[in-house]
């Protein structure tokens, strides 16, 4: 199985053409092997009693951040469907929908980056203390666990790569605002296609895991908080160190 595909450019020189989409099946299989393995491990593990969602509630996600998350999720799904379906043989006029969804994703990501400067950036930053938390179950995290921070970091890198390469590709096609410029060499185009493809494959794997963890029974309260905004005081006590994260109560 190849990682990349190559082609001859107009001068007969071999150049990169893009990612090998055979890797798509490898990514999906690996993601599902991990999910199956983790699910089996979790069913055999002794679990502490699930904290109640009743009683006092604390605010975890502002409405604007929840909106960002779901708009981003929606645009990523549209991008994956329009990008991947034609590759696996489900053909339709995908390109315009794809770049429109790409613009939406770019706008919400830029918004998120700008907004993050008004928020507590350190709550999402990975540091040496996260290693201690990951290895010792008795050490509770602040607002985000090491796993959540790692997921955020990987998604951030892959999303920035996919947006960056996608914008370059977008500039190379005809749109209502400009004609096709043909401004890149074939070797550069191939590299851009490769980066776009490989970061897409990475995102597919990470999104599979993200959805799996979001639906796991013991993590479901995080998903609820991404919809409704709150977690209960009991859930906060059970999973977080209030010295490091002590949010306001909400009604």
């Amino acid at each position: 199985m190849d990682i990349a595909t190559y082609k001859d450019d107009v001068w007969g020189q071999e150049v990169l053409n893009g990612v090998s989409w055979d890797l798509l099946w490898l990514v999906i299989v690996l993601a599902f092997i991990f999910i199956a393995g983790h699910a089996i491990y979790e069913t055999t593990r002794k679990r502490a009693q699930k904290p109640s969602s009743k009683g006092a509630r604390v605010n975890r996600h502002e409405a604007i951040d929840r909106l960002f998350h779901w708009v981003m999720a929606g645009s990523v799904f549209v991008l994956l469907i329009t990008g991947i379906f034609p590759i696996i043989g489900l053909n339709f006029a995908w390109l315009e929908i794809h770049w429109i969804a790409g613009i939406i994703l770019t706008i919400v990501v830029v918004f998120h980056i700008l907004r993050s400067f008004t928020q507590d950036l350190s709550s999402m930053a990975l540091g040496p203390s996260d290693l201690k938390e990951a290895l010792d179950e008795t050490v509770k995290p602040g607002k985000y666990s090491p796993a959540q921070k790692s997921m955020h970091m990987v998604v951030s890198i892959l999303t920035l790569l996919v947006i960056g390469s996608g914008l370059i590709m977008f500039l190379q096609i005809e749109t209502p605002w400009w004609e096709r410029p043909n401004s890149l060499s074939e070797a550069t185009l191939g590299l851009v296609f490769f980066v776009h493809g490989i970061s897409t494959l990475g995102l597919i794997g990470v999104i599979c895991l993200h959805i799996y963890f979001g639906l796991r029974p013991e993590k479901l309260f995080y998903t609820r908080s991404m919809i409704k905004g709150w977690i209960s005081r009991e859930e906060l006590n059970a999973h977080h160190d209030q010295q490091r994260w002590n949010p306001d109560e909400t009604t």
Partner: protein
Amino acid sequence: MASFDVMPEVQLFQPAELDDALKLADELGSDGWLLGGGQDTYGWLKDRAKQPRAMIDLNGIEALQGIRKTDDGMEIGAATILRDIIRNEDINRDYSLLSQAASRVASPQIRNVGTLGGNLSQDTRCWYYRRGLDCYRAGGNICYADGPQSMNREHAVIGASRCVAVSPSDTATALLALDATMVAENTEGQRVLAAEDFFVGPNTHITQMTALKPGEILSAIRIPKKWASQRFYWEKVADRDVWDFALVSIAVSMAMDGNKIADSRFVCGGVACTPHRLTNVEQAVRGRTLSNESADAVAPLASEGCKPLNYNHFKLPLMENLVRRAMRG
């Protein structure tokens, strides 16, 4: 690109039954090559620009041959040669648009072996693509024909999406104007596609010209009675009057109510990756008579929405003038 004097070695199957051909097509999938008259095929193979594992010769299959009258019009086997369509009395009487279009395909020698199915399914003539360059259509990530220095005189003026190649088929425009349907068969059954859905543009499938899937065979073309013996107009403009592909062509069917146009189909060839229906012209001519005034009124609509490339602006007045000539009566 290297040039070759001889054909490459390729396995040849010559089934006598459609079922056998379908099984072979199913087994070979995209490694197989369906052979009609071979007029598009042999160039690809000789140049090694396409290298199928095996060819399935459809010419010995009786079910794919012949022109038959049906309850709803006419059915033409996909392996029927163009000469037989041109000479068929029923087609000449009821669907002369098709026989006119078929009579302008290439040369008499090619029409003697070229099949209707082959003419409809043939690949584009974009020379960058046919030279074997790895363009979008060949699985690459660039269109060599759409650049500041590209030779794109024959290319698309509308409907392009990354690839700017055009459909070269003369009979395709006529069949679209006749509301024909295409019967595609595979080992599990058959699909009947409207001609408009049979031809696919690069926005939907950048490496294919038709909706035929690997393993499928175009078995027949059905023409409904709707347009039988109606008023037709066909014209093809090419660099040479014989043996050339259309720069722009037009196929028109008109149902008349007295001296007024009740319904019509205007289809242009050579301007897009698929035969291009001029729906705005069709709407504008409804209720009009055939006259110079009508012609002048609707002709400018023909090129609406077109975006010419560097060297094919001439196609826009050609489209308009062909509509004008069709409307003069």
